[in-house]
């Protein structure tokens, strides 16, 4: 019997096609209340008045929460990686993006909860919004974050992620041509078919059962426990079956607030985001701004790269510093470039905080690097397959931060596509392998970067 490598049907396939798979919204418990949120109507504003009493007094409303109800208001989701907290679970003094949650209501029906939210008395003093990452550094830019307009807490207290390798000045001096370009992929919605949803049931023994659509059960467990300041055994996350995520359900978007409502009401509470909330208030894939300048030779060797990245983080940091670091580690793409100078900033703007999405940090840089590669080929009138194969990383080459590649497949994947498309490669590129560089594939500029794959 061979099970690995076999085309086994999905473990949950029959359940999926018979409607028997239980997603969070399908769980039924008696006595359940519905939650609705009061969200910021402004991109940036001070909160000058917040009075929830008119909502709480409405018959059928069982709980209203604001920032005052949260035991630990700010918790850094990546505190283990040294990324401190900056985002309150519920807005306190100010709002920094349209859609930011300020207060939540739990009531007998969804309609009643919405009506109660309307009754909350709130006043704002609008502030100028910062939206263009390229203007965040300008002296006249509005100040929008307690840390300044860009993230200042990288290792060593640095305000940017840096990569330095080799001698960039020399590479640019030696270059025949310098090609410069700017790349700006858009913000994207995860748009899973199941919107953010959770159901929290207070148990008689004092525990909370949290039915969650999270992509990361233990991650969400830790986040909720931290905000609530309770040990892990007070919570049971029930999940594991998610109606699409794509990174957006790594954020613990609903679980903590719904838990607070359920505790306060002493009743089960469900919070199911509308599709409009999912589109307008849930985190997105970040928009990125990338500038690349490559020092190249006439025959297509890339001697060096200078790169500037501005990562539009939205209103708070969330996972952005992690994403930018990953981005920096991969800013040479599938190629070996020995001389590098990379500077990347996580920039705050008054838009919905951005978060992980499929290819986090790298989707952006793949677009920039690969479009740039095609441009270089065009500028130099070289074959776009062959310039890639020439610079492809090989066994023994090193990554931007000095890690030795032990078995890269850049060469065979490009060759396979050349064959599939019928793109004729010249003999030297057709027979190329990923074996360590020798002869014509080891020009002088690639010698110093070589590492020993055995020591990896």
């Amino acid at each position: 019997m061979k099970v690995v490598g076999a085309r086994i049907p999905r473990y949950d396939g029959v359940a999926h096609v018979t409607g028997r798979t239980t997603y969070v919204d399908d769980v039924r418990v008696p006595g359940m209340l519905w939650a609705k949120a009061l969200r910021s109507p402004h991109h940036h504003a001070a909160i000058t008045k917040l009075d929830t009493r008119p909502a709480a007094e409405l018959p059928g409303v069982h709980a209203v929460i604001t920032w005052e109800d949260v035991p630990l208001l700010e918790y850094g989701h990546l505190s283990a990686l040294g990324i401190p907290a900056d985002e309150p679970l519920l807005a306190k003094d100010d709002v920094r993006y349209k859609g930011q949650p300020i207060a939540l209501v739990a009531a007998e029906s969804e309609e009643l909860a919405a009506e109660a939210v309307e009754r909350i008395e709130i006043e704002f003093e609008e502030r100028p919004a910062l939206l263009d990452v390229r203007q965040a550094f300008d002296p006249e830019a509005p100040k929008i974050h307690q840390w300044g307009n860009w993230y200042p807490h990288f290792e060593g207290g640095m305000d940017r992620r840096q990569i330095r390798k080799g001698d960039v000045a020399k590479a640019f001096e030696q270059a025949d041509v310098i090609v410069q370009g700017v790349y700006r992929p858009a913000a994207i919605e995860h748009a899973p078919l199941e919107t953010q949803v959770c159901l929290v049931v207070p148990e008689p023994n004092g525990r909370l059962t949290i039915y969650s659509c999270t992509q990361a059960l233990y991650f969400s467990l830790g986040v909720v426990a931290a905000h609530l300041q309770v040990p892990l055994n007070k919570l049971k996350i029930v999940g594991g079956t998610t109606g699409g995520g794509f990174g957006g359900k790594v954020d613990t978007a609903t679980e903590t607030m719904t838990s607070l409502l359920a505790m306060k009401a002493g009743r089960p509470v469900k919070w199911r985001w509308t599709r409009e909330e999912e589109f307008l208030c849930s985190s997105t894939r970040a928009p990125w701004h990338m500038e690349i300048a490559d020092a190249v030779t006439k025959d297509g060797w890339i001697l060096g790269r200078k790169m500037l990245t501005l990562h539009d983080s939205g209103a708070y940091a969330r996972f952005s510093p992690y994403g930018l670091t990953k981005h920096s580690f991969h800013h040479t793409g599938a190629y070996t470039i020995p001389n590098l100078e990379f500077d990347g900033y996580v920039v705050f703007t008054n838009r919905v905080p951005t978060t992980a999405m499929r290819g986090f940090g790298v989707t952006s840089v793949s677009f920039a690097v690969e479009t740039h590669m095609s441009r270089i080929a065009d500028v130099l009138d070289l074959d776009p397959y062959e310039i890639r194969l020439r610079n492809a990383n090989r066994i023994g080459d090193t990554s931007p931060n000095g890690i030795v590649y032990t078995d890269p497949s850049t060469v065979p994947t490009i060759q396979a596509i050349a064959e599939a498309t019928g793109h004729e490669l010249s003999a030297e590129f057709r027979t190329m392998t990923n074996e360590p560089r020798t002869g014509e594939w080891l020009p002088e500029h690639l010698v110093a970067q070589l590492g020993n794959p055995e020591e990896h």
Partner: protein
Amino acid sequence: MAKHRGKGIAAIEYPTGMNQNGDPSQCWIKVKPDGRIDVFAGTADIGNGSKTIQAQIVAETIGVPYDWITYDNSNTDSSPVCTGTFASRATFVAGKAAEKAALQVKAKILEIAGKELEIDPADLEIIDGEVVAKGAPQTRMSISDVAAAATWGHGELITGTGAQLKPYAAIVDPETGRVDSPPHSAISYAACAAEVEVDDETGEVRVLRLQQCYDVGRAINPTQVEGQIEGGAMMGLGLGVLENCYPYYPSVEHRGGAFGSYLAPGMEEMPQIDTILIENPSQDGPYGAKGIGEMANNPQPPAIAAAVYDAIGVWITELPITPERVLRALEEKAAGKHEPRREGKKVVFDEELSVNTVSSGGIRFEVPA
């Protein structure tokens, strides 16, 4: 006015597991008295197929039929730690934890069987749910009987646990970005060729064909990995020509709040997709697998951008490549304004987008000549 066809290519790489690692997954397994296997893990199935993959890995590793496996990832009381289903880590990291737990179960089954058969466990193997003496296949005992013997005879519970963790790779020099150990578990590779048709009257870009090659390490379930790759291709197509939260970025106005106003790819946008899988096994993944779930939407946008250039001679480097952007670029080109600035050995594209143009004294991108 005409439709123009063009071709483009992109080659990419992508790491498996969280960047810098430090992301554990764990698994535990128990065996019922009739030999059926219960697997507990905290790995969410978001459609990626975690449940199927881990059940396959456990069945293969122990040597029992797939339908003997029950997989439970339903809650944090019964499951051990799993960092989660993201970072292309579910098959690779959580799958490895399942493999390790299954190896312990297998060893325990052989130990009990060894006592029952009075044979050194090292001389036993498991084939299709039966413990068989190596070189003497007539000496055998079903795993059902082994599990019964463990339960009712030896007073033992056959279990196994497994944990997979690659320690955190710290940045030891923030000036250079140097790390103290490899920041990834494995790297996967892919190449993609796109063929597009661009209508120079409407500006519409239609993706006709995507030919893709992925190094998946090992396809634990070939159909599942194909499904990931096809789904990723459509998401990459969306990134390339359709999707945008902020149609007039950086403005936050005119966001789409419905499927009718946010352009997720639909069935009518489906191109022809051809995929080649390369199996170049990884060192650390279960059965050599690598994680390709995320990278599946990375190579299409640049391949499409290059194909658009090939078709109509304009580089559009702000995504998505909408009809509006195509028509504006064609107008610029007709007015002779789309060419890069050439100065000495410098060829400078997209100056109007650069911080050097847009920032007023805040930040610059300096390039030596």
